[in-house]
């Protein structure tokens, strides 16, 4: 079903490598000695029971948390910590578990906010709004409209996102991340709280983004069916420790994974 993926993608160039990363809050270990990589063009799932450290891992990747130990290499550059602004500048975009939109702003403005780093013209040019600055504003707007068309949210463009139903909010949030034209897109439970139809739509968007734009995607998801369908490789965490890493079918058959999901938490 997915032309550009498969074994050749899994063997592709490493975009992001996480080596032996640990993060603790006080005495609570959120992530302990986790290593894994994300390869260019793949869809990488991160799964695990609640409190496994999945979101912490995303927060480390995009600079919200600074790990106490370990190293992260993104696009060949190693670093121990980076700020969210630098992560965004480097091409990492993300969505959030509980939808973090700018609630008072319209869908269009939210997605335009995603273009912040793409704006080149300085303050003075924007002020007079002629010539190059106007051309830029028009160009940015055009890109945003493309994303809106792609996500099929034309009908809510001018509505304040705080008023939208949850499923559409999630879609706008994806749009904002896409507006950044990221090299690496981090999705934190993109389908949480959605009904079946919304989930199917979201799945399609994720696959399309990956196929059409070649965007590398790392996603956290609880719906196993979705994970198995979407992802090239799956990383499994439990209590902050990596317990399995491999293709969906391999992971599904892994004893430790089954224990983590069935034996210990239930």
């Amino acid at each position, binding site marked *: 079903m997915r032309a550009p993926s498969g074994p050749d993608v899994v063997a592709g160039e490493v975009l992001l490598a996480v080596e032996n990363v640990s993060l603790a809050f006080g005495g609570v270990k959120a992530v302990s000695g986790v290593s894994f990589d994300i390869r260019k063009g793949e869809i990488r799932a991160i799964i695990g029971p609640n409190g496994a450290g999945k979101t912490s891992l995303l927060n480390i990747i*995009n*600079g*919200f948390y600074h790990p106490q130990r370990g190293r992260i290499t993104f696009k060949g550059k190693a670093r121990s910590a980076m*700020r*969210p*602004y630098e992560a*965004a*500048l480097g091409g990492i*975009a*993300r969505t*959030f578990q509980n939808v*973090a*939109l*700018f*609630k*008072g*702003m319209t869908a269009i*403005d939210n997605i*335009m*906010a*995603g273009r*912040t*780093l793409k*704006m080149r013209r300085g*303050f003075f040019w*924007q*002020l007079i*709004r002629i010539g190059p600055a106007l051309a830029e504003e028009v160009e940015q707007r055009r890109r945003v409209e493309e994303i809106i068309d792609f996500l099929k949210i034309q009908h809510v463009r001018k509505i*304040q996102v*705080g*008023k*939208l139903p949850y499923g559409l909010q999630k879609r706008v949030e994806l749009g*904002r*991340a896409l*507006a*950044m034209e990221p090299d690496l897109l981090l999705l934190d439970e993109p389908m949480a709280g959605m009904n079946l139809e919304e989930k199917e739509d979201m799945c399609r968007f994720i696959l399309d983004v990956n196929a059409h734009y070649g965007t590398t995607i790392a996603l956290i998801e609880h719906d196993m069916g979705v994970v198995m369908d979407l992802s090239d490789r799956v990383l499994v965490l439990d209590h902050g420790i990596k317990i399995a890493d491999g293709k969906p079918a391999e992971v599904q058959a892994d004893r430790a994974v089954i224990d983590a999901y069935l034996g210990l938490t239930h």
Partner: protein
Amino acid sequence: MLGPVLETLIGGLMTGVLYALVALGFVLIFKASGVFNFAQGAMVLFAALSFARLSEFMPLVLAFALSVLIMIALAYAIEFLVLRRLVNQEGIILFMATLGIAYFLEGFGQSIWGSDIYKIGLGLPTNPIFILESVFPGGLLIDPVELIAASICAVMVLVLAVFFQVTRIGRALRAVADDHQAAQSVGIPLNRIWIIVWAASGLVALVAGMMWGAKLGVQFSLSLIALKALPVLILGGLTSIPGAIVGGLIIGAGEKLAEVLLAPILIRTFDLAGGGIENWFAYVLALIFLLVRPQGLFGERIIERV
């Protein structure tokens, strides 16, 4: 009768401009971080003290330039020492932090600059101007200091409105106010934005402090005019720059007119001792607004999907 009332109205509007200037400082920071900055009044005091004491040793222009630098340095310090550590905390936590900053600044300012009453001599003409002498007997009296303050305020408002609303900075500000983490995730440099708005509201505080200082002398009570800015904010809406201006004008003019027009009626009707309306009028007006239109005249509609 019309002459004195007009005179009161003009005087009230001029005072209102000064209220607006203080309220403006609040609005800038609220727009950019969703934080209600309780320290705005203390910043007015601190800025006025700096300017008043510096101008004792040097020309006014130099004292002003140095005070500007001090307020910018203060913005850096507040961002680095306080705000940066509180990213993504609840609004109430940030509010408590500004409470701490307020008391620190009041005390610290007096430790450095002294706690007497200092004069600010801006060299402004102090002789009252009379206008429309042909229309009203004796003409209308206008205080030139207030007139100049009003003009300066108008210019500042214009500059700020353009700076924050015409450019994409406006969008970034609203984004930051809505959600720190999300704003950071799209590459909005939170720390830089905070320094910009705190520095901007520091400058507004400096101008407000200079004007109030020229009117009343620089003293501790300057930090209390921040309390007069509260009803202005409620009237205008916490997020609106034009709202701060209009709110300031309404409160300024309203309380003076109430004193002149309403007080005699109240005294006559209820046989009261009278007076003091000016002290509570603004707050009662604000209370009524809270009941009728909690987002203020120009504030954003409060939306919440439950």
